[in-house]
């Protein structure tokens, strides 16, 4: 399984006075077993891009090949694409529609034609992966939940289908810190278990640094750069120009440098930064 995007362009309201080019000649690929993240300023085209990957939007130009199938061709069954590629929307309100939480999460698996028992198991498992208990919230209306609870239900509904490509559009926005950690761990766990492709959109540079094999940087509809987190987060200036930033641990190390401490500055995660700082401080005290 792999995803290849070739020269993808998309225009909203083409031919109208409020025509808006949202994607401009974007090309990249994501391979089996990879976690890729998409970062970029608000309005840079991230959501527009991911909605193309499960066939929700049709390109104005370009092709998208998912597991060997060109999904932009006429006659491709959407149902099949949706089974392979699961997309969790940025605004979970747009995704929830059943009367109860349990029914909402069961909707996808039901459409896959699974039997009752398998469906129930998957609902329970998916909800527990996002930190919700089916016995507690299963019978409640998804619309009567808090913002963060809605988001968790929306994620559960997609992972219950066990897609080969799991796409999450800002999955942790609005989540409390505990749930945030859980969702990040969940992404890692699901990825390891299913060995699927994960693509997630995020404004959180710490998560991007910690999780991604590959980072795609969008700027005004164009793919500005792509590479490993190391490659991307060393381009501090270019990121700043695109409305972005570096991970918080890297910022701390930069600030230390500016204050005259000769610490190494390539750490991107807090684990690595702590390790480097400890070594630096222990070296310092030995010298005295």
């Amino acid at each position, binding site marked *: 399984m792999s995803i290849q995007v070739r020269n993808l362009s998309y225009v909203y309201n083409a031919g109208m006075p409020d025509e808006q080019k949202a994607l401009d000649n974007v090309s990249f690929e994501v391979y089996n077993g990879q976690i890729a993240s998409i970062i970029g300023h*608000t*309005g840079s085209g991230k959501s527009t891009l991911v909605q193309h990957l499960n066939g929700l939007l049709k390109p104005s130009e370009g092709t998208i090949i998912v597991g060997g199938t060109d999904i932009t061709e006429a006659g491709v069954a959407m149902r099949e694409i949706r089974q392979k590629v699961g997309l969790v929307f940025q605004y979970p309100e747009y995704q929830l529609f059943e009367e109860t939480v349990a029914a909402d999460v069961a909707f996808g698996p039901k459409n896959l034609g699974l039997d009752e028992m398998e469906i129930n198991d998957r609902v329970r498992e998916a909800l527990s992966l996002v930190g919700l208990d089916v016995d507690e919230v299963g019978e409640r209306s998804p619309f009567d939940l808090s913002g963060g609870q809605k988001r968790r239900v929306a994620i559960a509904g997609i992972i219950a289908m066990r897609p080969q490509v799991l796409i999450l559009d800002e999955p942790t*926005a*609005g989540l409390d*810190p505990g749930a945030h950690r859980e969702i990040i761990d969940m992404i890692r766990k699901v990825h390891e278990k299913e060995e699927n492709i994960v693509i997630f959109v995020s404004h959180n540079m710490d998560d991007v640094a910690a999780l991604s094999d590959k980072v795609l940087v969008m700027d005004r509809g164009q793919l500005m750069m792509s590479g490993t987190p190391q490659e991307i987060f060393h381009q501090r200036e270019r990121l700043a120009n695109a409305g972005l930033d570096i991970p918080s641990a890297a910022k701390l190390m930069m*600030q230390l440098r500016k*204050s005259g401490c000769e610490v190494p500055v390539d750490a991107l995660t807090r684990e690595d930064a*702590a390790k480097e700082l400890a070594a630096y*401080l222990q070296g310092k005290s030995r010298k*005295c």
Partner: protein
Amino acid sequence: MENIIQIKNLTFDYIRESDEGSETIHAIRDVSLDIPEGSFTAIIGRNGSGKSTLAKNLNGLLLPTGGKILVNGWDTADEAHIWDVRQTAGMVFQNPDNQLVASIVEDDVAFGPENLGVPPKEIRERVDEVLKSVDMYPFRTKSPHLLSGGQKQRVAIAGVLAMEPRCIIFDEPTAMLDPQGRQEVMRIIRRLHEEGKTVILITHFMDEAAQADRIVIMDDGRVIADGTPGEIFADEETLRRIRLDVPLAVDMAHRLREYGIPVPADIITQEKLVEYICQYK
């Protein structure tokens, strides 16, 4: 300092009707808080702990099930003063798309004061002034949907400011923003506070909460802690129990201690941590 908002033994229940009868959700359970005029309070807490419900009670979007709320002395349940309440305590939501109504930025900002019956000439002045104050004046004739998230959120803030509220409640205003948009909005919040507005900020970002003078932690509909950022973030026990985070400096200090570096407990800001590391011998 006068208390611009007084919350007295507030309870709030949502009633859910279904086929099996009705179910009551106790979203707020006996909360009492005073908000002094000019203060900057952050409210943090898990998803579902009652933060938004509390916020919506503060400006009369929801009315108490029990207890009461006084805004500038007016009871929010007093229909005769509901517009006074809404004008005194304005609200900015997480998703600016839900807050922007007009197809031109300046019309959107004028919407609030128009509804309050402000004379047209004064509306014009207010709109220009608030758009300048959030650095969006050059965009006044643009369509809101062509703006970035941070820009939209600033227009939404301008719309609230145009009603000249003395208190502004921000319910996760930066959740959908990119790193720069977040910084822009936080800069504006800090400035509003410096200019004397009362600010209440609901957030899941601990580094944002750390910028307030006071942090209130909600859990399961109750206030379980109320103190300065220093006090709140020193109590790692409570934070861990309810699965909240600590700011970066506190986390890094913790990690360094595990490597045997004796970082003192009172280091909670990045500046202090940098100072400590640079002076370490």
